[in-house]
């Protein structure tokens, strides 16, 4: 099956600044792809290139098998939802939805049925005669999605659609977008800097930095097998604990001399003996007390700070002389100054080459 969207060797320069560099990306029909990264990483730029709102410097873009590199946005078969909603403020919701179709000269009956369908899907029928100024943020964003919906296109582009909403609404609309995707089964490309949105929505996540895709994989792989230090540090909150040291056969030696057995680790690349490496372990993979007993690595540690979060507790301690956070059930009573046993299994952690920062 041909990919729904295909980006081939795409580069974009603004003057001498390289914003995107030789980017390749194939997106399957019906797939939900999230472009994730900090601001300035090129994710929105890439989306604008796909939409045709920015001219590329090199490379090609295919949508539904058609080369659209030089096409106008309206001719690409895309619909787009913007962060600021970008609703036409002087038009009613109904006019907002139908404006593009009317300009394209579509028959009135067809426009009416498409608007009705979009309004039904998004449950905005009661709002059709209102002006955007009289809508809440969440309602505005639904209308913006509706404007993409009436275009009846294969590919939906979302440019940080939830960033202007408050936390509660954001999580509500997140679920709705997921529901929408399950119902419509369109290809969706979604740009965000929020890793929760990425992890919850995506079939695959593309993590970007400096105009380059660092890792393209499903959320589980991204979270558990980050391909390099950057991805490992970017995904996860609180972020992964890193311990510097050297790796030699089945043993990792931290800078303070602590030895951690890594025989159980599934090496992708076998490092040279004595190579400098970084060991990474997620806070929830560090176990405490009895649970730590069975772990390949255990150590005594003193709790320094306890942050109860309600459902769980975050604690700060030191392992191998390095500040480390771990997460445990809030049922376990923990206090600063407690001496505890902590341990983890490297099979659930990650090892990175200290030089190249790539996964070992």
């Amino acid at each position, binding site marked *: 099956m041909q990919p729904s969207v295909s980006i081939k060797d795409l580069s974009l320069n603004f003057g001498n600044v390289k914003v995107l560099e030789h980017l390749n990306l194939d997106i399957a029909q019906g797939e939900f792809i999230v472009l994730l990264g900090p601001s300035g990483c090129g994710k929105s730029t890439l989306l604008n290139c796909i939409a045709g709102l920015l*001219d590329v410097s090199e*490379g090609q873009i295919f949508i539904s098998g058609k*080369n659209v*590199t*030089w096409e106008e946005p309206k*001719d690409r078969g895309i619909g787009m939802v913007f962060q600021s909603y970008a609703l036409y403020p002087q038009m009613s919701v109904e006019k907002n939805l139908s404006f593009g179709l009317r300009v394209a000269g*579509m028959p009135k009956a067809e426009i009416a049925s498409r608007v009705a369908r979009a309004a039904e899907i998004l449950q905005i029928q009661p709002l059709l005669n209102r002006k955007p100024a009289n809508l809440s943020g969440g309602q505005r964003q639904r209308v913006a999605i509706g404007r993409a919906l009436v275009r009846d296109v294969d590919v939906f582009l979302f440019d940080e659609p939830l960033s202007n909403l408050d936390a509660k609404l954001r999580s509500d609309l997140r679920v709705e977008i997921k529901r929408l995707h399950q119902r419509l089964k369109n290809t969706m490309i979604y740009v965000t800097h929020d890793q929760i949105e990425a992890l919850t929505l995506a079939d695959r996540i593309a993590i970007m930095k400096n105009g380059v895709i660092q890792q393209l994989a499903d959320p589980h792989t991204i979270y558990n097998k980050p391909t390099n230090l950057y991805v490992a540090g970017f995904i996860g909150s609180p972020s992964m604990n890193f311990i510097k040291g050297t790796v030699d056969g089945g043993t990792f030696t931290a800078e303070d001399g602590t030895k951690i057995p890594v025989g159980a680790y599934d090496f992708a690349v076998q490092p040279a003996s004595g190579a400098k490496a970084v060991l990474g372990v997620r806070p929830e993979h560090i176990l405490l007390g009895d649970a730590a007993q069975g772990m390949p690595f255990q150590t005594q540690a003193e709790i320094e700070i306890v942050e109860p979060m309600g459902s769980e507790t975050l604690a700060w301690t030191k392992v191998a002389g390095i500040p480390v956070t771990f997460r445990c059930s809030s049922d376990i009573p923990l206090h600063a100054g407690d001496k505890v046993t902590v341990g983890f299994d490297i099979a659930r952690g990650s090892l990175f080459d200290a030089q190249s920062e790539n996964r070992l």
Partner: protein
Amino acid sequence: MSQATAINAPAPSRGTVSGTEPRGPRPKPFFTPKKIIIYTTLFFFSLYFLFPLYVMVVTSLKTMPEIRFGNIVALPAAPSFDAWVRAWTSACTGLTCNGLAPGFWNSVKITIPSTIVSIFVAAVNGYALVNWRFKGSEVFFAILIFGSFIPYQVMLYPLVMITRELGIFGSLQGVIVIHTIFGMPILTLLFRNYFASLPQELFKAARVDGAGFWRIFFEIMLPMSLPIFVVALILQITGIWNDFLFGVVFAGTQNLPMTVQLNNIVNSAQGTPEYNVNMAATVLTGLVPLIIYFVSGKLFVRGVAAGAVKG
């Protein structure tokens, strides 16, 4: 089916004509009809805007016989500043023939103190309106802004009576007071908006430290207001320099500003008009605001736009 209607028929890609797949940036022809229309329109408007400046300067550099030849657009055969010298020193402004020089100095004498006083008063107003609101202060401000739209002619005669009572009618002080009054709405708006945009914590911190009205104004607000002072300065210097009505009514015959003298040279001249001298005088009068305009650039635009931004 839905595809076809939503996306329209795909336009034939320009790339396929040459047989290559579209790749890289969209080809952009250097001359598109759109660009040609844009630049031609802008070009003709530029001609309209520049033509008077050109005519003004060219005429002022010609001799009268050359002007009588009847070609207003021709460059001067032998550019000479004679007319400029005559305009400055000996052109007749009504009864006296001392040129524009006295008018220039009168304008300087009016503009400098009027600018300083009006800006200072307005800065204090803006500061009081933002940081020291008192009962009714917003009402006074609203009337002030509405007052700026009242035609000057409405207040002209009573103002003559008031200034006469105060003994400043027909004097420099009189015209300075008038400029301060009529500059107040726009300048107060300017300063009020500027002070409102400063972080209020700064003012609160200073009050907690025990500083009073004037201390905060001089030691905290003024040092931070340089940009807006420059904008106000540009606005007032050009505005007061260009004034005609207040100068002719309130300044008195001894202090008539340059614009009034210029109008007298051209429109009350006896005998044959000397167009080169007239234009030289016009250029000279326009020179001060023009220099300020070209030097200040973006700040002038900001001052002009500030008048349009409501508080």
